[in-house]
């Protein structure tokens, strides 16, 4: 195995006892800070009778209450910030308007740490200053594009902010002519590109591409193998979520045996989502993060809803950070679609406001030509506003799709079906996910 290259070897190979000291110091100062500066945490700690002076070990973190997605949504927009707004230099947010998005603020130091975290995982993936990195991710209010961009620039790579708005043909043209060596995108867009390469009769060997990094959606094993074969490249998985930081939370090294978590910035726990008790190390459960360096938007025991497990065994690459397995599922019904996460309840809310109470609908996710598709089938009912003529019907459906796009930033196709034709039960049956690998 080739020799490991580190971005910051002092941090990434820190002995476990040194790391533990660092974590407890940073945890204590973070807790002291949030207790002083964030009303939510002050109330939460007080109501759980948490005495911060008694928090003397990392295990004692268990006595501190969890923070949930709902807590963050209730604090919309700025109530979870631990610094005044004038100290915030960047804002990102999660999707949604009806069900409140989560707004995340970064201070200058937060941006610097974020950049470092991304630079580390890019380096771990094998990217150096000699690489040409094409970033086909959205550069918008979601954190993905900017996160990877900063990190790639930091390590000195040549960065092409291709973004997702560029057509597949143009992406492939850039890839071929600009001699891209690394592609950073979502799995579904990579499928598009792979299909496009075939259509345009470009042989993968005509490209300089050697590596792809994925963000936004879980990467299925089968899809991974297919893409590796189609594009003649190695794939590296990363993990990150906007609430915690964005990309940069964890990433695979060249050993590709799990994703190293940047533990000098985050304390990670796995809990049983039902009992909320910690599980045995190595067992599967819900991933919980505590940020220990963030100034603007610190999170204490944030329940991510992602199901995974931790591997404490030392890694061949020499990094001492724990590894997390690929996320295998969710504790809730969050749908991950082209890098955007949304809940069925958010769709229902939009339908309710346009067509009235209790809409009968089904959400169908599929993949056509390598692209994720979202279809919403809606039962016609007597309660609908009167629609006469095909023209009016089309306008109505278009408006509905437009509303979904405005609120959730996802492209959906809305169709009508016969009354009572959808035999869907409440809850999970409403979502039909036909995408391979899900």
């Amino acid at each position, binding site marked *: 195995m080739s020799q490991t290259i580190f971005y910051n070897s002092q941090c990434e190979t820190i002995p476990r006892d*040194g790391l533990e000291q660092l974590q407890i110091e940073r945890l204590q100062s973070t807790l*002291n800070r949030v207790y002083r500066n964030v009303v939510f945490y002050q109330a939460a700690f007080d109501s759980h009778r948490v005495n911060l*002076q008694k928090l003397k070990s990392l295990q004692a973190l268990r006595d501190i209450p969890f923070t949930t997605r709902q807590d963050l949504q209730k604090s919309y927009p700025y109530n979870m910030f631990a610094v005044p707004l004038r100290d915030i230099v960047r804002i990102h947010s999660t999707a949604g308007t009806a069900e409140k998005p989560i707004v995340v603020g970064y201070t200058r130091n937060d941006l610097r740490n974020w950049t470092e975290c991304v630079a580390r995982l890019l380096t771990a993936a094998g990217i150096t200053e000699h690489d040409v990195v094409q970033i086909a991710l959205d550069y918008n209010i979601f954190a993905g594009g900017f996160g990877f961009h900063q990190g790639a620039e930091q390590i000195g790579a040549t960065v092409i902010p291709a973004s997702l708005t560029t057509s597949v043909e143009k992406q492939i043209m850039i890839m071929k002519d600009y001699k891209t060596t690394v592609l950073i995108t979502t799995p579904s867009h990579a499928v598009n590109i792979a299909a496009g390469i075939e259509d345009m009769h470009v042989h993968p060997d005509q490209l300089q591409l050697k590596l792809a990094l994925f963000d936004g959606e879980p990467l299925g094993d089968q899809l991974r193998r297919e893409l590796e074969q189609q594009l003649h490249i190695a794939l590296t998985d990363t993990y990150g979520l906007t609430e915690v930081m964005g990309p940069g939370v964890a990433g695979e090294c060249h050993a590709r045996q799990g994703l190293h978590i940047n533990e000098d910035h985050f304390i990670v726990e796995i809990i049983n989502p039902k009992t909320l008790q910690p599980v045995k190390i190595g067992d599967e459960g819900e991933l919980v993060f505590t940020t220990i360096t963030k100034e603007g938007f610190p999170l204490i025991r944030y329940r991510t809803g992602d199901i995974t497990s931790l591997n404490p065994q030392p890694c061949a690459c020499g990094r001492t950070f724990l590894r997390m397995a690929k996320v295998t599922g969710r504790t809730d019904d969050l749908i991950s679609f082209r890098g955007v996460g949304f809940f069925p309840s958010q769709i229902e809310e939009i339908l309710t406001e346009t067509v009235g109470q209790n809409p009968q609908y089904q959400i169908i996710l599929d993949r056509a030509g390598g692209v994720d598709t979202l279809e919403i089938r809606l039962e016609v009912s007597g309660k609908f506003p009167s629609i006469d003529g095909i023209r009016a019907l089309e306008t109505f459906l278009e408006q509905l799709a437009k509303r979904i796009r405005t609120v959730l930033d996802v492209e959906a196709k809305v169709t009508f079906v016969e009354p009572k034709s959808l035999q869907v039960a409440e809850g999970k049956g409403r979502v039909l996910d036909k995408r391979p690998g899900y």
Partner: protein
Amino acid sequence: MLRILNLEAGYGLLHILKGISLHVLPGEAVAIIGANGAGKTTLLKTIAGILRPRSGTVVFNKQEIHRESPEKIVAGGCSLVPEGRHIFSTMTVKENLLLGAYHRRRKCTAADIAASMEEVYDLFGILRERANQLGGTLSGGQQQMLAIGRALMSKPKLLMMDEPSLGVAPLTVRDIYKTIARLKQNGLTILLVEQNAQMALAVADRGYVFETGQIVLEGTARELSDNPEVQRAYLGKDYQKINE
């Protein structure tokens, strides 16, 4: 080199340090900044063994020292330059320095100690000139140099300094900090307590911010200097407030 976990200490009923955890790596300079009464001096006194902690551990060079006596701690390689200097004003500069090497009196030869004294004189030329003058007749800055020199005479591995800029003329403060930077370059590990945050962060690698006996912020010196909260509270960059 130094690893402190959940340290609590105080005076009588006064609870000053409320669970302090921090570490200093070999060769590092670490600054502790904070307002008056935040517990910075109490921390140094507790590490030096002058004050007994109520709970928590202080590990220095892999040995627990929080139950040791001050003289043992000095002999172990951890010296304090106290706030207000505390030099012996009725003794000469040379005698003050010799006392700093007191714990080495049986372990080392006179030549060793003389060599150490030469090193101190090289560092602070003024002390050589005033070697036979009484300590009390020196200026504030010179006394501070003498206090640092005295601590260095014990051949410390970790040098703790409590407010070396206090009561010293601004120009001399610059000299003292230049010397601190030089000591660090020579490989000495330094734990520095300062209200003059700008000076301290300029020489330090990392820092901790104390507030009422707790650490509320830690990070590299650059991170702390860039932190707007630190800038407002300790670096005097509060001009924006006037407009708001």
